[in-house]
Each structure stands twice: as C-alpha cells, then as structure tokens.
C-alpha cells in the first residue's frame, strides 16, 4: 500500500468515525461490554482450571479417624497404612494441632473459633502422602476400609466438583459469548452500513474511474477494526481493574488461594481481548460490505 494511499484511508476513517459519532460510540461501547463479559468468564475459567490442576497434582490424603480411639489404635492404623503400596509418608495430626492450624489459616476470622470456646469439633487425623498423584484414588479407597477410619479425603474429590462447575461456566460463557458477539457484529455492521450509505456517491465515482474493490473496501474494514480496537482496549482496561480488585479481595481473606498471578497473565488477556475486538470489528465490516457494497 502506498504511503499516500494509507494517508487517504486514515483520513476517510477519521471523517467517518466523526460523522457517525453516536453510532461509533454505540459500537465501541457494545464491543467493550461484550468483551468485558467474555473476559470475566475467561479469567474465571482459567483460574478454575489452574485450581483444578493444582488439586489434581496433590499427593496428599487426609485420613480422619473415628472418635475415642486409643493410642494403640492409632499406631495400628498407621502401620497398616504404611504397609500399603505407594505410600511415602504418614503423619499424625492430633485434633489440637488441627485446631491450631485452622486458627492460623482463618487469620483475621479467628473469632469464629473462639466462639466454640474449649470445644474442638475436629477429629484426629493422619496426613498420608503417596508417591504419585495417580495412586491417590486407590490408596484413599483402601484406607477408608481400615477399621477406625472415619473417612479418607483427597483433593481430587474437590476436583470433580470443580470440573463440573468449570464445565457449566464454559457452556454458559460460550452461549453468552456467541450472543454478545452476534450483537456486536450486528451493531458494527450497522455502523459501517451508515458509512457506506453516506459515501455511496464517492463509491460510485471510485468505481467509474477504476478504483479496485479492495481500495474501496479498505477504509470500511479499517473503520471496523479501529472501533473494535477501541472497544477491546476499554474492555481490557476494565478487566485489569476488575482482576486487581478481585485478587485483592480474595487475598485479604484467603491468602494462599491459587489465583493466576496478575502479571504476565493479565497482559496476555489484554492483548487477546484487543485482538478479539479488532477481529470482531473487521468481521462486522465484512458482513456489511458483503450486503451493502456492490463493488
């Protein structure tokens, strides 16, 4: 593309964005809202996947014991577990230790425990570690059979639920995304249609004097891309503050929650959202040109 030509294209785009200022505003706004919602779902799903991944890779089983067992019972259970295959370590956690640990984890909300007074609702437990994550399920099942064991819990239990939720969010997010993308495409193609209409005389003359189809199309495509780019930029900025606020909120209550670190994660999201905006913009233009610009 010649320099002179790109200059001409940019002028055309600028004029037309100004001429249809309200439609431009509406288009950019719709792109921004759509991409923001899309981004929120993206962030949630990615974080849940990460959490699921971390839980899945855990090799720890929490073995809760029945109440009123003697020390000798504890020893018996411990040795029974240790004799199983694939067990790396077995560590006893008394109910008092467990209460202290919980108090530590609750942090600011320790008062919840204080409400219990001297009572301790927690059971004695073993923390069992296996060699490999794949062994967790069978080991837990076997341990649960041991006499005196109340239950054997492990991360993958939670993982199953988490996957259910993630799947649901993915489906819901996808449906919403398709809907919003449709709305966005519609409004952008409408804006471009207005531009095509406003410039129909010029377009006719361009055709008579031998401008190529692409020469005629480019300004409209660029206009769509510019609108999409601005919409994406707004959405990305909003998402960054959203994620920062969300992270601050979560970390203030759950310090060890495995959130995606903001950087570079949010930089990727920003770039992705802006590119998505540009793609939607170009798509909206293309639809409009196909329908309204008979070149």
């Amino acid at each position, binding site marked *: 593309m*010649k320099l*002179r*030509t790109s200059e*001409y294209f940019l002028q055309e785009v600028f004029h037309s964005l100004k001429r249809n200022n309200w439609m431009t505003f509406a288009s950019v706004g719709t792109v921004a809202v759509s991409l923001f919602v899309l981004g929120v779902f993206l962030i949630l799903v990615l974080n849940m996947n990460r959490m699921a991944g971390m839980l899945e890779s855990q090799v720890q089983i929490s073995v809760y014991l029945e109440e009123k067992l003697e020390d000798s019972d504890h020893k018996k259970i411990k040795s029974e577990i240790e004799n199983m295959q694939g067990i790396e370590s077995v560590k006893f956690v008394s109910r008092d230790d467990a209460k202290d640990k919980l108090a530590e984890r609750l942090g600011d909300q320790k008062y919840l425990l204080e409400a219990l007074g001297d009572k301790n609702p927690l059971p004695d437990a073993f923390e069992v570690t296996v060699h490999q994550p794949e062994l967790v399920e069978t080991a837990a099942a076997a341990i649960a059979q041991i006499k005196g064991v109340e239950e054997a819990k492990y991360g993958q239990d939670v993982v199953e639920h988490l996957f259910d939720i993630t799947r649901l969010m993915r489906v819901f997010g996808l449906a919403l995304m398709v809907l919003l993308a449709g709305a966005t495409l519609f409004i952008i193609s409408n804006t471009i249609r207005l531009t095509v209409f406003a410039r129909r*005389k*010029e377009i*006719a*003359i*361009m*055709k*008579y*004097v*031998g*401008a*190529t*189809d692409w*020469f*005629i199309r480019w300004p409209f495509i660029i206009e769509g891309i510019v609108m999409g780019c601005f919409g994406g930029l707004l959405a990305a900025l909003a998402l960054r503050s959203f994620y920062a606020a969300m992270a601050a909120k979560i970390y203030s209550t759950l310090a060890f929650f495995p959130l995606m670190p903001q950087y570079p994660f949010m930089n990727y999201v920003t770039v992705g959202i802006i590119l998505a905006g540009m793609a939607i913009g170009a798509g909206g233009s293309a639809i409009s040109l196909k329908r309204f610009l008979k070149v």
Partner: protein
Amino acid sequence: MIHMRNVRKVYDTGVVALDGVNVDIKKGEFVFVVGASGAGKSTFIKMLFREELPTSGELLVNGHDVVNMERSEVPYLRRGLGVIFQDYRLLPDKTVFENVAFAMQVIEAPRRTMQRSVNAVLEVVGLRDKYRSFPSQLSGGEQQRVAIARAIVNSPTIVIADEPTGNLDPETSWDIMDIFHRINQAGTTIVMATHDKHIVDTMQRRVIAIEGGHIVRDEARGVYGYEA
C-alpha cells in the same frame, strides 16, 4: 477500440434492451448514439464500461473482453475510459481541484504528477481559476466541465458521455461540445449518447441510431434524423 458482435441484452424483467447489435468504433472516432428514450441507448453506453453486461454476444473494449473478464479486471478496463453523466456526479464537499484529483487518488496515481495533471486538465476545460470553488458555487455548465476534467485526468483512450448536455442550455452545451471536440482532436475516442438534434446535425460526425434495441442507422457523417 470498441467491437460489438451480435450483442443482446435482456434485463431480469424480461425487457429486451438490445438485440443483434454489431458495431465497430476505431481509435480517434467521434460517435453520437441517438435514439428515443427507452430505445436502448443507455444500455449501449453502460455496457461499454461494464455497468451492464451483455446477455450474449461479443464485446471488446480497448482489448478487454468485457463479457468474459474477471471481476477483478473491471477496474483496469475502466481506467482506460472516462465516463461523463448528465447529472455531473461531483462530490459536493470537495473543491474543484479535489474532485478531479480524487480520480487520480483512487487509482493510486503518483502524488508528484497529481498537481500537474489536475492543473493541466482544468486548463483544458477552462476552470483553472476556479480550482478552489465547491460544486455548489458553480453553474451547471461549469460543473459538467469539472466532470469532464475528472474523466480525462487519467488520460483515457475513450471518453463515454451519457447525455452530457441534457441539463444544459444550448449555449452552454456548445461550450461542452467545444471541449469534446478538442479532446477528440488530441486523439481520444468519444462516444456520446444524446437527444440534442441541433448538436448532432451541426457537428456532422458518425451517428449510430438505435430504435427498439436495434441499430437502424450507422452513418459516417450523419444527422439526428428524428424530430426531437
């Protein structure tokens, strides 16, 4: 330059606009296409720059096979043609200079030749001193001269004019014809559809008369031949 064999045009509505048309126009000719409204004159003109496609037959313009050409080739066919309409079709928010330069801009002509070429054609049509005016500040005749300047700025080999004097008074029409005459003298082929009996009879050029979709007369130094 222009070669038509058995050209037939049937519109979607079923109207047969042209049928069995055979015409050859050579380089440097000045041709009037005459006929009553609805005779097929406009269709004839429009096919030359592929605004309309022949339904069947053979049509060559400047060596381009108009019937079988790719869509992407159409702009290059049109770059060899200058098209002028009855209603001028100028861009109201552009000055005279910009309207003419626009034709060069959109075919990505080099910038350095633009100024010179535009000034040269404005000189030809006698509007050099009005280059900063907007179309609304010009008379009908002047607007048509701007349109002519735009049509010839890319040095076409054929100028196609569809009723260029249709909206102008007789005196102004003669100014326009004078410009066409000069352009033709410089070697450009001119094909002009017209209703103006007086112009055709006075200019004594080749006349192709169309009636009911057929060419009924094709004379080297013809007259209008109808009562207008």
